[in-house]
């Protein structure tokens, strides 16, 4: 099943299929190692759900959930 990353449930895992964010964010994500093929897990969210902490490549990174809509994952 392929979904956008913002819909990945807490504690769930997936594999990144495509990253279609704007160029600066895509570059920053690349520096953290988030590229197609990366396996990500959803670690925690803020109360309103607007920020999500993802774990990938051994690191936890916080991102706005809004920006995750442009990233597709297979789970």
């Amino acid at each position: 099943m392929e979904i956008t990353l913002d819909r990945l449930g807490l504690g769930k895992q997936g594999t990144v299929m495509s990253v279609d964010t704007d160029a600066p964010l895509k570059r920053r994500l690349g520096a953290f190692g988030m590229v197609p093929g990366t396996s990500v897990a959803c670690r925690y969210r803020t109360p309103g759900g607007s920020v999500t902490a993802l774990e990938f490549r051994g690191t936890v990174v916080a991102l706005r959930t809004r920006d995750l809509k442009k990233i597709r994952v297979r789970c």
Partner: protein
Amino acid sequence: MASASVRQITVALAGNPNVGKSTLFNRLTGLHQHTGNWPGKTVGVAVGQLRRQNVQYRFVDLPGTYSLEGTSEDECIAGEYITQETADCTVVVCDGSCLERSLILALQVLQRCGNVVVCVNLVDEAQRHGLQIDAYRLSQMLDTPVVLTAAGRGEGLKELLDQIDQTAQQMPILKKHAWDDPVAEAERITFACVTRESTDRESFRRKVDRLLVSRRFGVPLMLLLLLGIVWLTVWGANYPSMLLEAVFDTGYTRLSALLSGLPWWLHGVLLDGLYATCTRVIAVMLPPMAIFFPLFTILEDVGYLPRMAFLLDPAMAHCGGCGKQALTLCMGLGCNAVGVMGCRIIDSPRERLSAILTNAMVPCNGRFPTLILLGSLFFPEAGAAFVVAACVALGVVGVMVVSGVLSKTVLRSEPSTFIMEIPPFRRPRLGQILVRSLLDRTLFVAGRALTVAAPAGIVLWVLANTSFLSRLAAFLEPLGVLLGMNGIILLAFIFSLPANELLIPVILMTMTQAQSLQSVSGVGQTLLLSSLTWQMAVCTMVFTLFHWPCSTTLMTVYRETKSLKKTAAAFLLPTAVGCIVCMLLNLLL
């Protein structure tokens, strides 16, 4: 033995944020760069020296960066330094506990620079996570020397220095590397060089972590934690402050007897001006600082701050900011100048400017004593902590409102992205860091008391004795009253431009019309408190939060923005807020 053949080597320390570069730097150079478990602690370049045998090492500690094409100010500093290749040897510091991500930068650096040493740091932490790193294999695959270190414990440093020494002597030849995708290559290398044993020691920390950022308890726990710190600071500072005052009082009497042969004016300048102002500032400032900073350092060292930024990002986003601004506000609690400099971690230039302009609205440590004293007007002793905590909260609300207004008017911009690493919890190195934060700050305060309070004390004494102060206060009286305070308090705010710590001493000196500040240390406070109505106290507290930043902060704003206009804005913005709120309060109360 002095020898003519001392070789000088410049070594750049590069790496991702929060991999222990500054800890390594401190270990190597014996300096005391501030370290902490959160990305963005180092925003500027620090330089330190080490002499070993006949080699003089010059270490350059760069801000952490995730890539050589970073976008924020601190990342640009690091990227430019590395690509310009001014160093004889570039050490890329990697995090042993997440080697894969660290290697992405290392591979980028290897593509651009010759003479690179890869230092895999935090191997002790990696071992705790059940990770074994094959340094030999790693070195072969990267085609560059690799050294394993645990900088916190000082392990592997000798080997690192030997390797740096050897590498720096070679001609910097850029090696041909076969890869073109650093991310894929990092994954391949990590797979080959790191073996993972399963371990369940992590589960406890994960549980604590989940609780601290949980949807239900995250925010309440954060507020409790901050309240706890403020409460401990206020409650704990009370007794040592009194003790110090008593000691200084005795010192005054002794000195007074000793100097009785001097002419009255010299006696006055030295004792009632210089001595009294300095000791007062120290007695009031030192105890809260000595409690607040170590406590705060624990939070920093454990890795709580990025979690706070995570929890606060939604609120900050509403006001056109981001979670990283919350980090700069935390730094502002210690010192606004440091907070302003910390704004370099914010990616968007507009958000960064808005964070710089509003930082001074969170009370720094220099303003705590004023808030504590005025707070004790309403509540005795520990109750004052709640007043102080409320003031901090009010300051944060002020920052958010002003940032929000700015982001919808002059600094309008697209909502930016927010991306921040959340490091694992680390055990705080209690002894080492607490002693350091205590000693460094103590020296800092003592130094500041001498450089600022001493001349200010002399000037004040002269002004007070020529009745200049009281005339000035009378002149300012109408404006002061309009703002819900009085002329004396407004005057004190003006005089405490060099340092906010001076506020209470100036008020006391003017109020008593006295030649001496010392005679009023105990009595004066009661006098001050009895002459203030509670409305005036409230307005003074509000104005303490929202007025012009101290001169050090203003200079830092100028350095960061390189613009007089923006510096003026940093001066006027909080002042305008303070004036408006105080006038409104004056009308309402």
